């Protein structure tokens, strides 16, 4: 499954998005008593902006995989 360079890079980015989005990375921006950073970013609640950003990263990875990896593997099989 992770045979090509691109597949490895995409898997790495996807996993990184999981670590950063819902994972421990969220504490970088989470407004709390220990981390009294701003609760908003460009007028949006910061956790909303954070989840949207990492969603776009994940969706981008799936899109690239769909176009560059999955279609190719189907064609190779055929």
């Amino acid at each position: 499954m992770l045979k090509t360079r691109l597949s490895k890079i995409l898997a790495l980015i996807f996993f990184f998005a999981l670590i950063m989005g819902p994972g421990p990375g969220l504490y970088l921006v989470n407004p709390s008593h220990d981390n009294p950073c701003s609760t908003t970013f460009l007028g949006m609640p910061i956790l909303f902006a954070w989840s949207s950003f990492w969603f776009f990263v994940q969706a981008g990875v799936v899109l690239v995989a769909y176009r560059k990896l999955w279609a190719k593997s189907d064609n190779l099989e055929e």
Partner: protein
Amino acid sequence: MNNFRILAATDTAVGHLPHFMLGGYMLLLVWLCYLGYRKGKATEEDYYLAGRGQGTIVTSLTIMATFFSSAALLGIPGVVYRDGISFFLFALNLPVAGAAIYLLGDRMRKLGKARGYVTPADLVGDYYGGAEVRLLAAATSALYVLPYVIMQIKAGGYLAQRLFPDAPPLEFFGSSFTMYETGVWALSFLTMAYVLVGGMRSVAWTDVIQGILLIFGMLVAGLATIAYFGGLGGYFEAVSALPAKALSAPGYSDKWNAGMLFTICAFASLGSIIQPGQWMRFYAAKDSGTLRKSALVFAVVLPVCFLFGIMLVALGGQVLFPPEITAEGIIPHPSIGAKSSEVDQIVIVMIQRVVPEMLGITFGAIVVTLILIAVLAASMSTADSNLHALSAVLTRDVYDRFIRPQADERERTWVGRIVIVLATMAAVALVEWSQKAGAFNPLELISQLMLLAIAFSSQLLPIAIDVLFLNKGSRQGAIAGLTSGIGLVLLLTIKPEWSFGLTKIVHVSAVGIAANAIVFGFVSRVTKKVPQKRIDEFRRIIKAKG
């Protein structure tokens, strides 16, 4: 105007149009059920997998509609309303599940087509050999299905309560049924009927209509909420003024820390995409391209519906109907409900407030009705898939193997139908009991039921990965791993204090998967591997075209 009486108010504005729309939706389902029945053949493969020929539109929408349970429109928004914005990060499990549709699903499909599988247990039982793995996989599937069907049926009750708030109890054969009970029975009966008659084809076709309604409902509800606050700027300004606890993790209930959210996104997502109903949809897909496109649509469209649709509605609900934080817990605003479990109703209350404001009473009432029908569709599309899957599991994995191996295809299909009736009755009885239960009520919150069901189905993950990718496990390893995983999830669900706080940091599905995988790996190392000939045959099928 009272928030809950929009439909009643439309009696003067648009007559009984909303009620006719609800009736029309149900008639449409009956018609699709009839069409499915007419087109179907009297074979097991056709009843359970629609002849393995489902194309992209049907496959992608049936996978989405099955995934979109009542939790999507009631339970998950309920958690956002109760706990705040931290639960938005839950939506990041959806691209993971989406990618798995192709990465796992296509391999399952190829094996299913080549070796005639119908249920998940067919695949793992055939690979590892022996009856035990098949029985354990069937038990895992059944443990997933029952809580899921129960929560869909509950949603039917909630919806009926909200649609007809002033309706008196219905008298039927000398018994009196409240609106909640009427909704529970109506949803169960209709769903049961079209699954019974049309099998997978009817289920999938109704899922197409339901999937479209769901996407429409989630996005329009989100748009209406934003419009109610005067646009995106007004919306964000209003929600940014919520208390800091609502805008940060772990939220009001202190549940949604990074460990919990990460393990849900990484593991529970995979558990929910390999639930028996979805697994059977992979078998039913026509080809690799179908699943590839379905994976992309799922990974992109579903998170958009959550993040930019229904979750915005629930967060806006915190502004309009602030919950009360008490020593006993989080109590919803009186307009939402009196009990903490009634946070699940936030979307129903919100759309009845915000949609008519945006679209006016008449058109607003029509759109509100469509969204309420979408809530109903969410419940029905998941209940039907799960009842259908349970029927396949109990018939093929239990009845056919252990009770009457000599049964022919026709007999098995009829037994499957009896299973559907019995499972529906059992689920209705449990919901009725839950409604009348006192302090101890394990079925209270829809979101809790969803996460419990997913924790069970996740236990199939280690052996699924082994069969599809690794080929390192043994039959004894699979038995030991599954037993440990299911046992641990059951134990920690009944006695969460026995996890010594672990299940407060990570989701119980991840604890179960970790125990399952460790035991599976260790036992597989010291026992006899699956015969190389079988491994080679499976690898050959996976690598083959089509």
